């Protein structure tokens, strides 16, 4: 009986798409907690795209640590290092998700169907995802610095 329940819960986990679950919960949260916010689409797009870029950065930096070097774009066109470096990060890690999130979520108002499909969520996927990416990226940065003797 217990084994059957475990299989059932595992099955349901795969049936739901985590990517859409995060989006559905995030959209529901921002509509619930900031109902008067007119530019909620831009806000949530901005937030989740940044979290996705952190997610990719965590994967790539640990791949680099284990010897898998992925060539990335490094801009050097402006007098400000801050502009060059942040734009390099945005192009390498955020731009794929800007495109992907727009096409999969906001194009033709697809988010309406997604929210409708995942409307009874018990777990705050969006919040947990954002927190885990913020903390995970910072911890990865510190740990990577320690392990590579740069701190």
């Amino acid at each position, binding site marked *: 009986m217990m084994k059957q329940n475990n299989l059932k819960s595992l099955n349901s986990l795969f049936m739901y798409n985590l990517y859409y679950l995060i989006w559905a919960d995030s959209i529901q949260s921002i509509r619930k*907690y900031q109902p008067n916010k007119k530019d909620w689409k831009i806000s949530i797009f901005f937030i989740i795209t940044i979290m996705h870029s952190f997610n990719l950065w965590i994967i790539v930096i640990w791949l680099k640590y284990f010897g898998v070097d992925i060539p990335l774009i490094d801009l050097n066109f402006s007098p400000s290092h801050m502009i060059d470096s942040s734009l390099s990060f945005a192009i390498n890690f955020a731009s794929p998700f800007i495109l992907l999130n727009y096409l999969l979520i906001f194009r033709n108002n697809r988010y309406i169907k997604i929210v409708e499909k995942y409307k009874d969520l018990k777990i705050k996927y969006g919040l947990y995802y954002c927190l885990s990416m913020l903390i995970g990226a910072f911890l990865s940065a510190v740990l990577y610095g320690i392990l590579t003797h*740069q701190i």
Partner: protein
Amino acid sequence: MGNYSISKFGTRFSEGAGAVTTYMAYNDIFNGNQHPITYLDAGVGTVGLGNALAPAFGGSSVPVIGQIVALYSWVRFWGELGYNHPVSTWFRDDETK
């Protein structure tokens, strides 16, 4: 410009400042160009982003944190620019002289 627009601009500016500072720090760490201040940038930017996204998930943002992050990024931007390109070198052909 009304109060609403000014506050909206301020919110956007502090969100953007948090993102830019964090992006710069993580890119430098990835490329091996980090200094102790890079980790401070990463920490300040992360706190700023957390503060900016809190209201969307039922939390409340602390306005002072947003302002501090925006100010930090602004000072960091001009400080770094001034350090790498001091005014005394602006009208020289070769900045290394």
